[in-house]
């Protein structure tokens, strides 16, 4: 920090600009919270941003009229399972691609990496047909199964593990450690920062995923939150305080995850450019 630098006029101007711009960025959140506290009647009649009389009607309706807890469970269940599986499968295959030699390794790795470039729109239809043939439509495993592995995760893990010294593995082997033991006790702890970044991205992506659940889930009880939210909106078009209340509730877990892991998140993003 340079203390000698004076606070100049352009600097104040810049801070002012950033303050206004960041306020504009959070307006939709303010709007969401304020609308969720308005009553049904007020929404239609009022032209004011602030609620006249604060009411929790919307929140009450969400829990009473909708299987909100069920949706929350569906989302938590799928996102957690996807995250754990993706981190594990990425680390394991990343380790193998980084530290082992076997026939066809480069070819297999290249094919895995090449799938990163494929837009989901081309995968959507055949994957739907595969899920349909497996009889998994309207089943949460339809959401989970295609997301257990990630080409990006494999790529990221291989990059990180490649940097670890080979002696580490070699000396563990000489001491008689098994391959799974080496992976579990030596490799995994050393790449924890990379894995936690991958875990956060994967969790957020799974939690926020909309397109794929939209295609494979129809039953209201089976829906995940983002999908349920939009579905729910269709039946409550006029009183959007209910939809806004549901939006507030769906946002809270993501906020918590983000605020706890913000550092890893930003670092991971800066390193990888992954969305």
């Amino acid at each position, binding site marked *: *920090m*340079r203390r000698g*630098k004076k606070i100049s006029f*352009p600097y104040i101007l*810049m*801070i002012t600009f*950033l303050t206004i711009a960041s306020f504009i*960025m*959070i307006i*939709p*959140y303010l*709007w*969401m919270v304020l609308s969720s506290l308005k009553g049904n009647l007020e929404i239609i009649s009022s*032209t*004011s941003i602030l609620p006249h009389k604060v009411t929790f009607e919307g929140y009450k309706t969400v829990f009473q009229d909708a299987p909100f807890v069920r949706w929350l469970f569906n989302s938590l269940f799928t996102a957690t399972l996807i995250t754990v599986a993706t981190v594990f*499968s990425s680390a394991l*295959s990343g380790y*193998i691609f980084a530290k082992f030699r*076997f026939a066809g390794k480069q070819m297999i790795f290249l*094919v*895995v990496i090449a*799938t990163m470039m*494929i*837009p989901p*729109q*081309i*995968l*959507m*239809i*055949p994957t*739907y*047909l*595969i899920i349909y043939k497996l009889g998994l439509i309207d089943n949460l495993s339809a959401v989970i*199964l*295609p997301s*257990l*592995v990630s*080409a990006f995760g494999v790529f990221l893990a291989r990059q990180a593990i490649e940097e670890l010294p080979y002696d580490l593995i070699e000396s563990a082997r000489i001491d008689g450690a098994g*391959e*799974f033991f080496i992976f579990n006790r030596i490799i995994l702890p050393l790449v924890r920062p990379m894995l936690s970044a991958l875990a956060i991205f994967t969790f*957020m992506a799974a939690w*926020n995923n*909309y*397109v794929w659940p939209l*295609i494979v889930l129809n039953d209201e009880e089976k829906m995940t939150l*983002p*999908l349920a*939210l*939009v579905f729910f*909106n269709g039946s409550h078009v006029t009183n959007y305080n209910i*939809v*806004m209340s549901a*939006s507030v509730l769906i*946002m809270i877990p*993501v*906020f918590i995850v983000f605020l706890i892991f913000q550092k890893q998140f*930003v670092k991971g993003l*800066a390193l990888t*450019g992954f*969305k």
Partner: protein
Amino acid sequence: MEVKQEIVKPVSYRSQYKKSKRNNRELKFIILSLTPILLLFVVFMVIPIIWGIILSFYQYDPLADHSPFIALKNYTELWKDPVFLASLKATLIFVFVAVPANILITLPIASMINRVRNRFVRNTFRTLFFLPAIAPLSAASLIWSTMLRSGNDGLFNMILAFFGHANVGWLTDGKMAMISVIIVTLWADVAYNIIIFMAGLDAIPKVFYEAAELDGANGFQKFRHITLPLLQRTSLFILIMTVISYFQMFAQFQIMTKGGPGGATNVLSLSIYKTAFGYSRMGYASAMATVLLLIILLISLIQLRVGRSQWEY
């Protein structure tokens, strides 16, 4: 030197001795761990890509008894299909407006946040700009839909009314709908590029700026002659990644406008979804998806080509 060799030799001898046993063990480990992972890749990545392209040569409808092979007919039909052509146009308009707008917003904001001297204030700004990105896009689309309502009860029209302006049909007017969706997309998406730009700016050695200051360069000159040229790699990366991801945007279109009014916002990904799952024309939708795939592969190839010729600093 001699001492070193003496130490190394017994170790390599020992590993030589154990090699056959070890190779066996390693092979078992590789096969045991990699098989299930690769199987998932094959079933949910490799097969769908190939199947998707093959489907585009069929008149495939999951509800029909018979799905004939029609070779390139889906593709020839595409170029005569006004709905497809309109959706291609809508996609291109969206990408060519939203991507430059994104970069014009994110680069200045990133460089401004980077220049904030107090670390706490800098982190606070970064967090505030990041908050929109963590909202599920579906929730963000719903929130914005209510802000963009065409009656008196939408935030945007409330603000217009405050200035004495008449209501605007943000999502119902053909011209405004695309602009509205672009605004929402930018709100939800600028954070990523701000973070990546900030990392790129951090990587520029400070000595360049100090030297320029000694030469009496002002803020703009420093930006123009140091920041911009040294940020080329980052910018190119951001440009390509943003273009690719904007070609595939879906949720905000499906939720906010459903492609309307009059197909003005019926972008490719939405059109593919509707054709496949709304009208069950999966072969035809696969042809549309293949066109999208080709566009994205072309952009990726350009990136690889340009990226290789870039120099490092």
